[in-house]
């Protein structure tokens, strides 16, 4: 029986998995540095990049490339105790091969799959619902997602605006995506505040709000349908639902669901601290 305490990174998690598989002891919990101490004996794991990388490659080679992606993406979800679920899948994967990925009615796989579906939905929503403000030539935006979708959004926006400078801040996980004309990076950032907008920016915001109001047909008003497609939790950072003052005011306290990760990018690309293109 093992209780792991690790740094919250994907590399750290894979190091724990390596240890658990090697020692053949069942892990009972994976704790983050911020979690309160337990009565159990804890194993503090230092992220070992070399081991993590070997294990990560083994996922693709010994199970399947799709399985490797499943684990990496699964780690970005906000599934409670995702580490335990992913560990179970990895162990089964090494025993049974790619079959585990197809066994969608397996309770653990079903749970991970559902979490992934929700994450992709959130990603898909945010691709559209994110709003940037042009502040002195830099496009600045904020999100407050449940899942850690920023690494997934990064490549989308870097490709979409190859000639722009961008900053997108994730309030939940306290990290920022920074892109300078196609070159991008994810950086941990404890504090973030959007500056005041200039006249031109305010003018475009006003036009967008006006357009948004105009396009709705009065005879068809349907707030229920609107809320189904655009859940209210996204609206507190969307230009069309806010005044300029609200957009620029101090950050509200982080919501309860927030669970800060210590820095830590997590796809393979960032495993070695690579910079995306």
């Amino acid at each position: 029986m093992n209780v792991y305490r690790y740094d919250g990174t994907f590399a750290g998690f894979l190091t724990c998995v390596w240890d658990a598989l090697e020692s053949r002891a069942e892990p009972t919990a994976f704790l983050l540095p911020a979690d309160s101490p337990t009565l159990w004996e804890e194993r503090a794991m230092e992220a070992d990049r070399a081991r993590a990388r070997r294990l990560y490659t083994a996922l693709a080679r010994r199970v399947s490339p799709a399985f490797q992606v499943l684990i990496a993406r699964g780690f970005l979800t906000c599934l409670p105790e995702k580490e335990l679920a992913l560990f179970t899948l990895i162990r089964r994967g090494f025993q049974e091969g790619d079959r585990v990925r197809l066994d969608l009615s397996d309770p653990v796989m079903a749970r991970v799959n559902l979490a992934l579906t929700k994450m992709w939905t959130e990603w898909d929503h945010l691709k559209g619902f994110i709003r940037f403000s042009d502040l002195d030539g830099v496009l600045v935006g904020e999100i407050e997602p449940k899942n850690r979708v920023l690494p997934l959004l990064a490549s989308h926006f870097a490709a979409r605006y190859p000639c722009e400078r961008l900053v997108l801040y994730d309030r939940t996980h306290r990290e920022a995506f920074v892109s300078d004309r196609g070159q991008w990076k994810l950086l941990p950032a404890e504090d973030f505040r959007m500056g005041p907008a200039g006249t031109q920016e305010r003018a475009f915001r006003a036009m967008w709000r006006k357009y948004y109001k105009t396009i709705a047909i009065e005879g068809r008003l349907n707030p229920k349908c609107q809320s189904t497609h655009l859940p209210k939790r996204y609206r507190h950072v969307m230009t069309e639902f806010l005044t300029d003052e609200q957009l620029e005011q101090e950050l509200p306290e982080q919501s309860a669901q927030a669970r800060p990760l210590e820095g830590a990018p997590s796809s393979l690309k960032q495993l070695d601290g690579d910079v995306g293109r």
Partner: protein
Amino acid sequence: MEVMDKLTILADAAKYDAACTSSGVVRGGKPGAIGTATNSGCCHTFSADGRCVSLLKVLYTNYCCYDCAYCVNRRSNDVPRTAFTPRELAELTIQFYRRNYIEGLFLSSAVLKSPDYTTERMIEVLRLLRTEYHFNGYIHAKAIPGADPGLTYALGLLADRLSVNIELPSESSLQLLAPDKTKTAIFKPMAQIRDGAAQSKAELKLYRHAPRFAPAGQSTQMIVGATPESDRHILTLTEGLYRKYRLKRVFYSAYMPVSNHKSLPAPAGFKPPLLREHRLYQADWLLRFYGFTAQEILDEDHPNFDAALDPKSDWALRHPEFFPVEVNRADYEAILRVPGIGMRGAQRIITARRCGPLSFEGLKRLGIVMKRAQYFITCSGRMLPGLRFSSDSVYRRLTGLEQVALGEEGWRQLSLFDGNVG
């Protein structure tokens, strides 16, 4: 006039167009350009009426030389008129796009002077966007019926999707309400777009740099509820459009009273037939993704939808011989026909059953919702244990579910519906 005022007038005039999709074409980022496009499109917000806002949907101008009875922009209507300049509109699109407000531009127009002149102005907007601003995002342009085919072709080279509205579901209705438009004038550009797109596709196979003509295909829209066509008529027409003109989408727009024309339903007390529109969209999905034909969904004996039931459940209840479907053996097409199981659910069933037989517990874990499906499936030869029903009680339970799903407002629409309310 300020751009803000123009935007207000020209967005207001364009809002009755139902289409606002940005789907059907994939384009990655390009160095030096701005924008991408994804196959499934992207919704950027939802307006208070619950409709997706994906594109900046505006008219180039609302000065119109036509006088169509159902249209807000008809020349006899007394509304403020204006027009963008191509530069204004291109700049606005880019600035909205940079801020991620929109996925691209949906440019339509009233007919200013002549169809040719209007198309030329629209081409100028698109040319500015594509060549000067290096805009690589989505553009949907409306082809103006009656314009020179050469101009429509030029428009299609700059746009991703073209559309021609057929406006009304039959020629007699068209004559009655849109005397300036004829069936041939509408179907001619439609055929041209179909052939142009097919030719462009064939050429692209031979030459990588062949010009791309309307790569995201074409769509159309018709107004429902202003004229007396049956649902069956509309659905059969839709099916024909998909088959014959290779349309990507057909949109339906519940008639909104915007004029007092003597041939139209009176504005006073008239409610737009939103539930009917909803049912048409449901049936439209069945045509496009679920392998149904229009004849199966509505036949001579059932010319209109049962308003109290979705078309898929309705079909299932009329075809007891098809059910129950055995989820562990049936093929994808058969599973798709089960009410309550959609494409994603059917896909998951096919994948998951490769690892062993599925039970009802397993189905639930796959995310299959049983409320509707339970009456129509078996797992390893057994129905859901403890389930007792007759064909009457299934109808009652399914319509009960539908009542909850539609909510109070939707359910009240039933009284306005011409169908056979159960």
